């Protein structure tokens, strides 16, 4: 059979962003997939070098626009490590709560869009966006903004939680806990969904380790690695939770890990809310002059909803000399040319959706 070459994108309804895939097909079977990236490149790492330390936080949020607070936290943590500023205890608890809420919102969006792509399950899309909106309302209450919350400050937060936040958050978490089994019930009993997800796009344990996949995609391949557990930051070591590990490595386990992680995040957020200490949570206000850095080089690792992010910061007085970001999505995307070989063309978008990539994070 002659090989057909099909060009997908850069504008395509199912690619979740502007990515171009050049697919070589033998009949309906994929021979090779070549991703082309760079349509959203805007030079964040260069822009950061021209700004003061705390002026760069809005740029960091726009890297991963589905989970902005996680990236913001990673960058602020890198600056804190460079300056040698400790984070106040109450602020640590609040950051854990907000980050887990952000993780829930991000996983909900990824599940909803995946279901929309696979088998036209528009109901799941509607459900997940409705529930995500409820979580976003909570974050808006805490930070004052709906999508981009620039609320992290050196050593703490921009503002403390509002007085009735705890009650609202606990109610929302109760609601979500009831809601997640409904998702499982609805999605996993759909024969189209299971047919198109189970046993397709298998990432073996060795392949996952060799490429450097992290996050839910790694844990779906049977590797028990979670930065929150393996090298705990903030107060994650005070709560009891398990990294969710599945062993199949296919599309379905990558989806299922996200559902299980939502449940774990609800547990962590609830435990943190119940043991929230009294005290001060306000960080250093943003001033024209920031304190001089103590460490020249600092490396900070954080577990984002999509995988492990490393921030490598070389510090100069007043502004970073160099900031290098290890983006989890970019490295997870590398798996696609390995795992899509031998699958059907129609399953390409299931694989792409379950790998859960964000183009802003890849192109930077």
């Amino acid at each position: 059979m002659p090989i057909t070459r099909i060009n997908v994108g850069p504008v395509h309804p199912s690619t979740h962003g502007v990515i171009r895939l050049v697919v070589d097909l033998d009949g309906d079977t994929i021979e090779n997939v070549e991703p082309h990236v760079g349509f959203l490149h805007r030079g964040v790492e260069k822009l950061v070098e021209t700004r003061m330390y705390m002026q760069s936080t809005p740029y960091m949020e726009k890297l991963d626009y589905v989970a902005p607070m996680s990236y913001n936290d990673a960058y602020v943590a890198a600056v804190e490590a460079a300056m040698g500023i400790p984070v106040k205890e109450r602020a640590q608890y609040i950051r854990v709560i907000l980050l887990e809420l952000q993780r829930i919102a991000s996983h909900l969006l990824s599940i909803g869009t995946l279901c929309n792509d696979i088998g036209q399950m528009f109901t799941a899309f509607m459900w997940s966006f409705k529930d995500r909106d409820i979580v976003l309302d909570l974050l808006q209450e805490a930070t004052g903004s709906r999508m981009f919350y620039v609320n992290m400050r050196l050593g703490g937060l921009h503002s403390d939680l509002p007085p009735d936040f705890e009650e609202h958050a606990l109610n929302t978490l109760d609601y979500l806990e009831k809601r997640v089994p409904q998702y499982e019930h609805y999605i996993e009993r759909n024969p189209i969904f299971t047919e198109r997800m189970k046993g397709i796009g298998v990432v073996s344990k060795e392949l996952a380790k060799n490429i450097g996949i992290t996050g839910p995609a790694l844990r779906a391949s049977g590797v028990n690695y979670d930065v929150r557990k393996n090298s705990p930051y903030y107060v994650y070591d005070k709560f009891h939770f398990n990294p969710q590990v599945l062993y199949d490595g296919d599309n379905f386990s990558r989806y299922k890990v996200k559902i299980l992680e939502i449940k774990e995040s609800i547990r962590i957020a609830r435990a943190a809310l119940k043991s929230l200490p009294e005290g001060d949570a306000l960080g250093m206000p943003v001033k024209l002059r920031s304190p001089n850095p103590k460490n020249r080089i600092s490396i900070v690792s954080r577990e984002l909803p999509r995988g492990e992010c490393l921030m490598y910061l070389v510090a100069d007085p007043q502004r970073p000399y160099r900031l290098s970001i290890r983006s989890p999505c970019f490295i997870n995307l590398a798996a696609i040319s390995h795992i899509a070989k031998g699958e059907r063309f129609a399953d390409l978008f299931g694989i792409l959706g379950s790998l859960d990539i964000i183009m802003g994070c890849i192109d930077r």
Partner: protein
Amino acid sequence: MAEDNIDHESKEFADAKEEMDALVYESLKGREVKPNAIFAKLSDLTRSMPIRKKVINWSRVNSLWPLQFGLACCAIELMDFGSARIDAERKGYLLFRGTPRQCDVMIIAGWVTKAMVPEIKRLYEQMAEPKYVIAFGECATCGGPWWESYNIMKGIDQAIKVDVYVAGCPPRPENLFAALMKLQKKIGGSIESR
């Protein structure tokens, strides 16, 4: 703007039109045509020029089909616009289409890099007239926070004509609703059009 180079007034086309008309008259000769009631009414309405314009505008205003096309952050709010809370279908906006050939409105949601400009122009040129563009968010309006970046176009209006600008980073989904209502007013003639 896609100004096509084909001269519709040329001899060749005029002949083709005449031939076509002759063929149609030939095929209808000796037949009794029963006109559809609705179309008959519409044709009565559209016989006089001012009313005809009104009818066409009415149908344009109430069937805005946006293109399903997202670039960056604002596309997430665009998805939220299409979901349960906003219920945009009550105004007739929610038929997001995957192909530009079926669309009237293009919503530029996100920053426009130099690599994307030819793609956006191509999509715009593939849309059928009349077509409208909404610059959704700061980046599409003026470059926004990426003003100093080396790879960003400072506003999509440098490449294609924009009808409505939406402020915000990102604008809330309600804001897009307001923008589409403004666009409806503009198409309906309430706002001075370009």
